[in-house]
Each structure stands twice: as C-alpha cells, then as structure tokens.
C-alpha cells in the first residue's frame, strides 16, 4: 500500500494507482476533459494537472502514479492558474455558441469554464473551421467544436476495436478524421455511437429527431431490449416521449452500446407499434385479449399436429428474448410438440 497526502488528507491506495484514483477515493474531484477509466491513460487535455511538492513541474494526475510520501495539492494557486490558462487556450479555438449548442447543460468544457470563471478567451487569433460531417445516419461530427481530447479515437480503437477514426495532420491543423478524410459514411464506422457517448463537448452529437434541452428530460434507467446481453441504458424522456438513449455502466456493457440500443428507439413512440395482440378474423386483423390470443395459438397447434403431425409445425425465436427464454422455446418445441423445427434470428 502507498500513503500520500492530498489537500492535507492522508490517503492510502494500492500500488499502481494514480494520483487521480487516490483523490477520487477520498472524494476529491479533479477536473478532466479526457480521462476515462476504460482507456489507457493518455494525458491529453492536461486539465487534471496537480501540484506535487518537490516536483519540477505540474503533474497530470490521471497518469502519474501515486508514490509514498507524496504531498499533492489539487486546487493550489499554481494549479488553478494553469487550468485557467489551459481553458483559455481551449476556448480560443472553440466556438462560443452555447446558446444554441445542443450539448449545453451537459458540456464538460462549459462546466469547467463556469467553475474557473472563464467567460471568454483572452487570445484573439486563428480559429479552426471545418465542415460538419453529417454523412453518418445517426450522429454528426463537427470538428470545429472538437477540443481534441482524443477519447473518441481511443474508445474506437481500444474498447470498440473498430479503428474507424484517428488524429489527422499535425500541430494546429490536427483534427479527428477518417482515412483520407473521406467522411464517416466511407469509413469502417459501425455507428455504435460509443465515441458520441464519451465526447465531452458538442463535437459528436446524435442526430435529433426533435429539439430538447438536457435539463428538460427525465432519465429512465432500463435494460436494452434488443438482445440478450442485457446492456444497461438510460432513456431520456421529454413529455412522455423517448428523445435519446444513453449508455449506463452495467456489468455486461461497461458503458457501451451498439447501434441498435443507442440509436434505434423510434419504435417506442411509433404510431404503428403493436401494443396488443391481433388475431385475423374473416381476413381482418382484430385486436383481442392476451388470453384469447394464447387460446388461438394452442388450438391451432393442436389442430395442425393432429392433422399433419408435429413436423408440420416450426418455431422461430427472437434475439430480443433472453437466453433462458430461448432455451424454453427449444424445450417446448422438442418436448411438448415433438419436432426439431426450431430456429433463431441470430443464426442468419
């Protein structure tokens, strides 16, 4: 174990833990724009710098291992000055369109500028300007708003293993792009949206079907219904309508979602969504009760089995069912009905 002092408090952490971990363990929050515990520490934004007594310069807490006897200050004058300067630099190259930016209310840059009283940049120089890439079906990439924290690139390469995007060019011209800057639709992007989920600013945004502000929505935590993995997610609901889905850290998904769970929530509020069972009567589908629907199924199965034998019946089950439910389906077909005619959509 390692013992160190953070803001005057003694902290004990395991060997290998960073200063950031140590601080979090006692509830000291160090601001950051680029840290994500699922990624290898990359130390890009430098906002998390802290003062370590005796060190030559400020240290990035996200990537500096805690050491015995370290004395750390997370909000000292030198630290605050450096953070302000860094925010000043970021803001010098970031549009101040918070009034209309869809990220407003959930933008880490906005929060940090509020925390450190940065109203606008003191630098008056060149600003980057890129065309928004809207070629992806589900989200947009606006490099003009990008602060190059790198999280999207590393989530794509280290966690999602897709490597669709990377840093392009050098120096001030650096931006995130696809091979040959041909646009997201031409890339290997699988539209999982995990990059969108980690973007601290409004550079990567889901394409919205309707306008809303983050402070207007109610969050409903649920399990994704698309397949049996059990990804945890939150539905953002405005006026009883799902307007966006966000991943939540669950045991099975660790904060990730796939294209379906992330972006395919239209059906929830769709007018032609089936909410009650239908039975065809005299050529017309009619709404019936669940009991009547089950009875119809049982009657029909019995009738067919008696007339043509069990192999005249087949079952097709859905990936939206759980593993247990799918198991029960095969059990029922084989043991109750007596046929091997059972299949599953995930096999296709």
């Amino acid at each position, binding site marked *: 174990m390692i013992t160190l002092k953070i803001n005057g408090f003694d902290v004990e952490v395991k060997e290998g833990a960073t200063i950031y971990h140590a601080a979090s363990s006692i509830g000291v929050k160090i601001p950051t724009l680029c840290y994500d515990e699922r990624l290898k*520490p*990359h*130390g*890009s*934004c*430098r*906002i998390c*710098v802290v003062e370590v007594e005796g060190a030559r*310069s*400020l240290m*990035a807490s996200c*990537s500096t*291992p805690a050491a015995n006897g370290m004395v750390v200050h997370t909000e000292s004058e030198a630290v605050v*000055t*450096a953070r302000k*300067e*860094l925010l000043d*630099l*970021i803001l*010098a*190259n970031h549009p101040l369109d918070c009034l209309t930016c869809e990220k407003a209310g959930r933008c880490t840059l906005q929060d940090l500028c509020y925390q450190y009283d940065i109203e606008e940049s*003191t*630098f008056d*120089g*060149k600003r980057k300007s890129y065309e928004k890439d809207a070629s992806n079906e589900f989200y947009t990439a606006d490099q003009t708003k990008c*602060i*190059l924290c*790198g999280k999207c690139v590393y989530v794509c390469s280290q966690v999602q293993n897709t490597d669709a995007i*990377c*840093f392009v*060019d*050098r*120096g*001030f*011209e*650096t931006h995130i792009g696809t091979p040959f800057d041909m646009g997201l639709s031409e890339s290997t992007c699988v539209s999982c949206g995990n990059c969108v989920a980690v973007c601290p600013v409004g550079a990567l945004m889901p394409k919205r079907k309707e306008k809303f502000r983050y402070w207007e929505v109610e969050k409903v935590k649920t399990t994704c219904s698309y397949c049996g993995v059990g990804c945890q997610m939150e539905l953002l609901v405005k006026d009883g309508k799902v307007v966006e889905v966000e991943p939540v850290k669950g045991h099975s998904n660790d904060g990730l979602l796939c294209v379906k769970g992330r972006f395919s929530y239209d059906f929830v509020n769709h007018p032609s969504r089936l909410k009650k069972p239908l039975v065809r009567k005299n050529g017309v589908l009619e709404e019936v009760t669940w009991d009547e629907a089950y009875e119809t199924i049982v009657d029909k199965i019995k009738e067919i089995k008696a007339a043509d034998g069990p192999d005249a019946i087949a079952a097709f089950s859905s990936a939206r069912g759980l593993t247990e439910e799918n198991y029960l389906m095969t059990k029922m077909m084989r043991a109750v009905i007596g046929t091997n005619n059972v299949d599953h959509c995930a096999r296709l």
Partner: protein
Amino acid sequence: MDLYRSHVLVCGGTGCVSSESMKIIESFETELAKHNIEKEIKVVKTGCFGLCEAGPIVIVYPEGAFYSMIKVSDVPLIVEEHLLKGRIVTDLLYKDHTTDETMNSIDDVGFYKKQQRVALRNCGVINPEIIEEYIAYDGYQALAKVLTEMTPDEVVDIIKRSGLRGRGGGGFPTGLKWEFTQKAPGDIKYVACNADEGDPGAFMDRSVLEGDPHAIVEAMTIAGYAVGACKGFVYVRAEYPIAVKRLQIAIDQAKENGLLGDDIFGTGYGFDMEIRLGAGAFVCGEETALIASIEGKRGMPKVRPPFPAIKGIFDKPTLLNNVETFANITQIILKGADWFAGIGTEKSKGTKVFALAGKINNTGLLEIPMGTTLRETIYEVGGGIPNGKAFKAVQTGGPSGGCIPAEYLDTPIDYDNLISLGSMMGSGGMIVLDEDNCMVDVARFFLDFTEEESCGKCTPCREGTKRMHELLDKIVEGKGTMDDVAKLETLAKTIKGASLCGLGQTAPNPVLSTLKYFRHEYEAHVNDKKCPAGVCQALLQYLVIDDLCKKCGICAAKCPVNCISGVKGKEIYHIDQERCIKCGACLVACPFKAIKKG
C-alpha cells in the same frame, strides 16, 4: 588487396554529395585512367569530414593534403600536378579563416586541432561501404571482447562507470538505462537506435551513419548482449537516403560475415537488426512516439511511466539510445571506462559532437571534449564570426534550446551548465548569431517550427505554441504591447510546465531565454516600434539622407513600386513610407550611400 601509393579520400557526406562530390569521384577515376595511374592510386568515398563549410573536401594521403571547395573542373589539375608530378596544388588547399594561412595537412587545420574524435573517429577516414576497412580500424574487436570475455553484467558495469550520458539531448545516464532494461522482466527484449534526427541544422547522427555505419551495428549488438535482446531496430528518417543505404549495406555485410545473425563468434549469442524509416515527423524523435511509429502507429508520445525500459516496442522492455551514444560504445569497451571518464567534466563525460552553423566561419561538424568553453568552440574551432561582425548569442539545442548571450561565452559546455543557462544540449545543434540577428525573430523562427511539428495531442503544446507564434508575429509587426510580452511569458511557462512530452516542455525555451537575456529587444519592438538589428521588415524604414542625395534619380528608377519621388538634378528624392514594400533595392542602387535603413 592491392597496395596503392596514394589514397584520394573524397567526402561522400550529404553536404558534399549535394555539391557534386560524386561527380568529383567519377572525374578522378577518368582522369587517373587517362594518365594510366589508376592502379597506383585509390579513390575512396568516405563519410563526412565535418568541415562542411569548405566542402566538397578531398584529402590526398600519404601527404594528408587537405583540398577544399573542389569543383569537378579542379580534378584534372590535382591529378596532373599532385598525383602525377607530386606537386601539391597550393591554390586549392584549405585556408584557415583565423590565420589566413594555407594548410597543407589536415592535422594543421585549426578546425581539427581542438577536436577529439571519438564518435566521429572513422568519419572521413574509412570507406563506410567496405567492412574490411572498418575492421582494419579495430572494428568488431569490442564485440569479440564482449562476447568472449565479458558477462552482460560486466558490460553494463563498464558503461555505467564510463559516465556516458544520452547524446540525444536528455542526458540520461546510459549505463542506468542499460541496467533498467537488463533487469526488466521479459523473455523478449529489443534494442532500438534513435536516428530520427530532426533538429534543424543538426546532422551528427547522419554523419555517423554515413561515415561509420558499422560502429552502430557493432554497438547495438553489444547492447543486445548486455540487456538480453536479440533484435534491434534502427529508426532513421527517410530524408536521409545515403545514411539508410550505407546502414543497410553495413547490416548486409555484417550478416554475410557472421557478425550479425545466429551464433556470433561461435558463442551461441545471436542478434539481428532492421531499419525502420520515419515518415517525417519531428516528434518521432521523442522516444515514446518513436516506439509508436516503429509499431506502425501514428507517432504520438505516450505518458511515462511505463518507461520504454519496462514497456517499449510492442510492450516489451526496450533499450533506446541515440546514434551518437551508440557511436561511443565500442571505444569505451576497448579503451576502458576510466579512459572515457577521464575526458570531459565531472558530470558530463566524454566528447560531444556539435553541428556548428549560422554566423560562423567554419560551418560544420565538430567533436570536442565536454567542458570546452563556448568561446573556444566558437572562436578557435569555429574560426569566429565572419566579416568582422560582433557576436550576439549562440543558440544551442535546436528548437528546444535557448539563446546564450556573450557574457556566458566562458561557460564550459556540459549538460547541466547549458540547462542552468536556460538552454540545453539537445542533439548538439549550435547556431551562432551576430549583431545582424534579431532575437525576437529568432524566437519566432523556432516557434514556427515547433508549432508545425507539435503532434497535436496535448492542449498546451498544440494550442499554446500557436498562440505564442501569433503573439510573436504581432510583436515583430510592431503591433505588440507590453501586455502581449507579459502574456507571452506566462503562456511560455504554462506550456513548459504542463505539456505531455519533451517537445512541448522545451518548445518555449527559445522565447524564455530571449526574454531573459534580450528583453530590451522585445521592448524596442513594442515601445519604440524599432527592430534594433534591422531584421523585422514591418519596423524597417528606408530613408533618403538629404545631405548626401545627389538628385541622380537612380533610386527612383530601381524602385519596383514607384514610391520614390523627386526631380532629377533639381529636387532631393523622397520615399513614400506608406507605399514602400521595404525591398531594399534603393539602398543597393544608390551610388552615394544616401539611403539608410532604420
């Protein structure tokens, strides 16, 4: 092997090749054949001699006659007079700037007198494309000694005791690095050589690879044995085609001769190496970025720890040293740690190669013992400032270094002294600046470089260098305020303290050191709207001195924008400052020196 009565050594370094030294070799061969003496005289293509200012260089042995600035048209004369008749062509011999004396022999040239060549020992002496010549100068003896007589621990120990420090700029003790890699757990380890020399004006690594590539092959094999690696990578920038070619030839020859490969000298130890070409990013000289590039990824620095000695190439323990560092290894093994530790200062041992450039008579490559003063280097080895101009500063360490003013000229050069002066050793660039250089402009030049070469990963370096550059632009254009100077200084300190890698942490050095030693120049730009050195165009004014004007009108005739008015023979001429583009044509044209720059 045939015996020759005379050897003609022609420099095949990049500097001389670009001034047609290859054609000189061809011409020697045809001329010798013409006189039927090609069997008596051998023409050898060598690596860089170091005195690039005087290139192309030809040395004729046994006399050691040192011919400089040779043109293809000079060759027939040298062949006929010197090689055929034995009369040295005095007119073509190198002339020393300091004494203006013609030097017969390479040993007499002042440029070489103070030098002690360890890393460059074979450059300009052997033919780098012939392994036998390297062997003749004790090549591969150190490897033989290491493999047959020494344990890996003993090798690490001798390097540690020698006091050798990394020549790439950081100055980390080499022996410790070897020890860390040796002790790092892991079955597979790598040795890597950093030959991604990117500092503008620095070319010592190139010269070693071009002039003595086997020294690197041998040293890397020794290092592999010491740390327990059997594979090496040399990361060379693709902009060094001659170095790459000769290194490849050396690797192939070493393989043919069994000096690379399995079971070297029958000891059971095997080592192999390959070249990886850089794609032109300056930041790839930073070790973690270099490793990423070797792995095939974008060259961007990573956070340390873990250090390469623990997790390097493909996450395996990796020993990474610079070319010049490796070039010292065989000599330390052969001559001993005490010999090496006997050269230099208390904390910086051995010699250091510098690339001398700028306002200096002897532009070129020199190797001097650590502890030589800046004054000795610039005035004795470098031959002083040309045209009788006054020395202003010396910029060391390339774009990561700083400017050192005249009052510190007597500082002995070593790692720690340069850092305490706000500069650094870096890879050994040394740019001499004279009274005609504007220090603000110099700072801006280096910022221009670092801003473009920033990898874009961390905020302070990517955004900060851009803003520093913009502030400097403002100042040289005469639009700066003292607030801008203060802002520049704060920003420089933030970037230095908060950047991720060495590039960002050192990028503000040119600004900080010029602010420290030449603040008055910044103030002159801001307060007086004047550039004291007369460099910054926006602050320049060309004025007619009324008393001297002879009303001849030549200036007006030469002016490309017709902004000079007057009447020939009747009225004194006048320059319209609004329209003047500051080209200086009038100043050059005026026969009466009646136009001044101010």
